[in-house]
């Protein structure tokens, strides 16, 4: 077996199917999108090459930048919420009663499809007979908010289900990372007289750091290209108040029939995600990874 696997030709042969697949469904479309971004194309007939016109228009498009700002806000909120997830995971990992059950409960939203979640929260936010406003009314609030119709509220109203949707996923990742830390380290620290907070801060956190870095990238990039709940719940409205980059791209391409411009947005979004990933990797880079065992 070792002999076979050291044969470079065999390795190449095994890699080939996956390589073909990823080329066909990921890299080639990316290159094509980049090309379409340089054209004016309504999706029918042949594209007209216009050079960097779309990108120039994009840089001046205030609707795009406001959607980019919304996506950035979502990224910031997602990244900050990771702190809460980490705390929850630490509690769950510290052998409390029912930890298993809680972990499963937290994971449920992750198992639902986005559209089902959107429908659920549409009902919660319903301005007259939604549960949220009913509860507020029972507390005597007179002018209950119009969650999804008020341009000042809608973005935050939509962030909540988005964060809720992925909470279980991150908690599960953190839980697994924390469970991976050898119990002997914790016991040793206890013998040395460290309290729970010190153990969490000085031992668990540094050892889970690699995983935390990955989740930050996942959360930020996932937020920047977020689409589903926004599309179903508000379709970017009212008047673009909850528009994000991906939903704006969709609208330009499929509603305004401007596939060239839509492709330019898509390609730009890819660049933004790459840059964001690079920045996060730079910021969180440590010289050497800590290893206690």
């Amino acid at each position, binding site marked *: 077996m070792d002999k076979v696997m050291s044969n*470079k*030709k065999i390795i*190449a042969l095994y*890699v*080939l199917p996956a*390589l*073909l697949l990823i*080329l*066909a469904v990921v890299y080639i479309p990316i290159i094509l999108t980049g090309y379409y971004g340089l054209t004016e194309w*309504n*999706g*029918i*007939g042949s594209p007209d090459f216009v050079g960097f016109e779309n990108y120039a228009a994009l840089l001046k498009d205030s609707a795009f930048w406001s959607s980019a700002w919304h996506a950035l806000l979502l990224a910031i909120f997602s990244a900050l919420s990771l702190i809460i997830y980490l705390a929850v995971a630490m509690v769950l990992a510290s052998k409390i009663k029912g930890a298993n059950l809680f972990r499963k409960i937290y994971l449920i939203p992750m198992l639902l499809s986005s559209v089902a979640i959107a429908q659920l929260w*549409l009902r919660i*936010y*319903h*301005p*007259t007979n939604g549960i949220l406003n009913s509860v507020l009314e029972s507390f005597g609030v007179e002018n209950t908010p*119009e*969650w*999804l*119709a*008020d*341009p000042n509220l*809608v973005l935050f109203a939509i962030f909540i289900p988005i964060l809720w949707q992925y909470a279980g996923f991150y908690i599960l990742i953190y839980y697994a990372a924390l469970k991976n830390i050898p119990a002997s380290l914790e016991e040793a620290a206890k013998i040395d007289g460290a309290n729970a907070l010190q153990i969490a801060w000085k031992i668990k956190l540094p050892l889970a750091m690699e995983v935390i870095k990955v989740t930050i990238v996942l959360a930020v990039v996932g937020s920047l290209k977020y689409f589903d709940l926004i599309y179903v719940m*508000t*379709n970017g*409205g*009212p*008047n*673009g*108040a909850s528009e994000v980059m991906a939903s704006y791209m969709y*609208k330009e391409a*499929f*509603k*305004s*029939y*401007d*596939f060239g411009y839509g492709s330019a947005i898509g390609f730009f979004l890819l660049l933004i995600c790459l840059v964001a990933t690079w920045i996060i990797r730079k910021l969180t880079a440590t010289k050497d990874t800590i290893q206690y065992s």
Partner: protein
Amino acid sequence: MFKKKWTTLLLTASLAFAVAGCGNNGGNANEGAANDGANESGNKVTVNFMHLWPEGVSAGQNKIVNQIISDYQNENPNVTIKQEVLDNEQYKNKLKVLSASNQLPDVGVTWAAGFMQPYVEGNLFTPVDDLLSGELNGKFVAGTTEAYAMNGKTYALPLEFNIAPVYYNKAIFEKFNLEIPQTYDQFKTVVKTLSDNGVAPIALGNKDRWTGSLWYMYLADRIAGQDTLAKAIKGEASFTDAGLVQAAQEVQALVDGNAFVKGFNGLSNEEAKSEFINGNAAMYLMGTWELPNWTTNEDIPQEFRDSVGFFKFPTVDGGKGNIDSWVGGPGVGLFVSENSKVKDEAKKFVEYFVTKWGEQSVTGAGVIPATKVDTSAIELPQLYIDLFTEMNKASSITLFADVQMKADAAETHLNQIQSLFGKASTPDSFAKEHDAAIKAGK
């Protein structure tokens, strides 16, 4: 060294595979075409038909489609009609994607004017004028096929014809001693009375935006007149016309007067409709395609269906509009793909479908077809007959603005409608944005 060599080799190999793959597919497609060609001379023919009446959402229409198809297949045993059914929005998206890869179904559903323009310009739809001069000659209601005409040719045959009345809940009106408003001032009094009594006057789901557009269009029609509105939409006049700006102001005045259900800008049309059906809102401005829900749909309580009435959008004092002027127009029509390999069969099917649809949609689904119907011969709900009569004496029918405009301008119009209702846009900026978008000509 190894790396470079192998990477190059691999890339070449993968390219070769990809090309070979395409080649194979191409070969198959050709084979298929050859078979289809042979089929026309008597063997099996398959006509692909894509439509947007899923069983769950449009039960009545879905039943008729299936009925017509099975009848057609019985009469023409060599033809198989293969259906693909999608929901409205998904239908539009799929049509777009299919057209980009030149794989439109043989027969499909399209909207008029602005929607079908790129398809016509891209030579994807085939003219159906030969059908119009054949058996179907003179069968269509005047003004319906014109909406599908471009450059002197007709590219689709209309199925439905709609106008938009204001439906109202008679029970609620009775409870507060309200009369049907004839003038806009009376209408405002009705709105105020309802609002003061804690009933939402109007159900509106403006997340979908075209719903709010109906309100603006009617106000514009009644204040500035049908002619001005039509010209502004075509780009021959400006939206800064005093009457059109006043219409936008009236929209905001209605919003200020709490005329619409709470949170209307975040509600979909379906959600708004359920507010009306549940009796939470008293009025609902919507197309005649909703008629089956007020007449024959057994899923909606009989008590409610009996209490639905309609009135014509009231006239505004000093306005140039006429009470018999409507917003509406043909709904969807059937097109035949230019690249269809079974074009003749497809056209025959369309002709059959349109004829049968006209006969069956009236009784079966309770929608108003684009072909002429003799209502006296069939027993129909009163609401249907009344609206049908109104339609026949309409002085003018203005096609929905978002259907008339080109895609990009329509998108601006819809966004501006939502901001106007949400007070994020002033009547003046509303007008200017429209002019700019229509001028851009996209």
